[in-house]
């Protein structure tokens, strides 16, 4: 089931719900989710993805090749993150830490890195 979301601005779609397993959001621009992204759910965005909730599913930001795209969540515990043509996943064998703090994933020197979310001025 593909969910399109409602247009928030010209290039950003708003998904005001929790995405459950099997649900998929596809959008050429940015995606803003007000809710959780559960395991088995998928977001594919041309631009950035922001989840105001817990991200446990699969997200592909910059799906059209935009290497500046980022993935931000209040709690970032994804199954997999893809940015442009890079794919990354949490390390094997380590249970997901019980962190609840905003983090952002971005490409740095061709690798996906995850950092604490800091408001840039």
């Amino acid at each position: 089931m593909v969910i399109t979301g409602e247009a928030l601005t010209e290039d950003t779609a708003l998904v005001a719900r929790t995405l459950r397993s099997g649900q998929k959001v596809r959008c050429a621009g940015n995606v803003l989710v007000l809710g959780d992204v559960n395991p088995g759910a998928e977001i594919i965005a041309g631009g950035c993805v922001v989840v105001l909730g817990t991200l446990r599913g699969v997200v592909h930001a910059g799906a059209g090749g935009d290497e500046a795209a980022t993935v931000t969540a209040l709690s970032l515990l994804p199954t997999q993150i893809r940015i442009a043509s890079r794919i990354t996943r949490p390390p094997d064998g380590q249970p997901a830490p019980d962190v609840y703090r905003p983090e952002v994933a971005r490409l740095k020197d061709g690798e996906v890195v995850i950092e604490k979310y800091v408001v840039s001025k």
Partner: protein
Amino acid sequence: MGVVYVVTSGKGGVGKTTTTANIGAGLAKMGKQVAMLDTDIGLRNLDVVLGLENRIVYDVVDVVQGRCRLKQALIRDKRFENMYLLPAAQTKDKTAVTEAQMVELIGALKPDFDYVIIDCPAGIEHGFKNAIAGADKAIVVTAPEVSAVRDADRIIGLLEAHGFHDLQLIINRIRPRMVESGDMMSVDDMLEILAVELLGIVPDDDSIVTSTNRGEPAVLDASSRAGQAYRNITRRLCGEDVPLLELTEKEGFFSRLKTLLAGR
């Protein structure tokens, strides 16, 4: 006019049929008019769990295809005269019934019963769509396993897409000791992901195996802990405010003695 509940889970083997049988029998014991409908065509089980297999003459496919009247296919329970079962066909498959036929069938059942409980097959295909077609409300059954929770989440998404709201969750087969030691998902862990209303928790209980095999729903067994959990669930369905079952098992005399001897 009765309320129609569908009992579903996505994953197989988490206890849909057991839950249907126990909720049905529990409601019947409280004096409600109950009809149970097995929609698992080709793999029927509800009749066995209720101990009514040897009474089947007609089934749901015979009814929708007009080979018999609804009243002829309804089997009256051997314990409660206010509880009926409409069995699934065993020699057909899911495509023998359409969603429109299910809606019509349930429409015909509703006026005569307080509750119609539909036992849904595993999966998300034709059988699932048939089972939910005529239902008013949905009960999702899951177990404390990652795969069962994943499937429950999928099912909840599909139910919401079909216009079901106020979904209710039953967490089956909880083992308190394993939860305590951190080896099993806790109720809170599961609710955090699924985020739906909790209807009840049912502890893993050996007596379920025997009661299922004997065709006697555990809810009728006063000594069964799972039965107690199902009695609570049926009372909640009737609008009563019943606290969740205390999960920590009562320690017996011998285990207390053992801890005492080993501990000091």
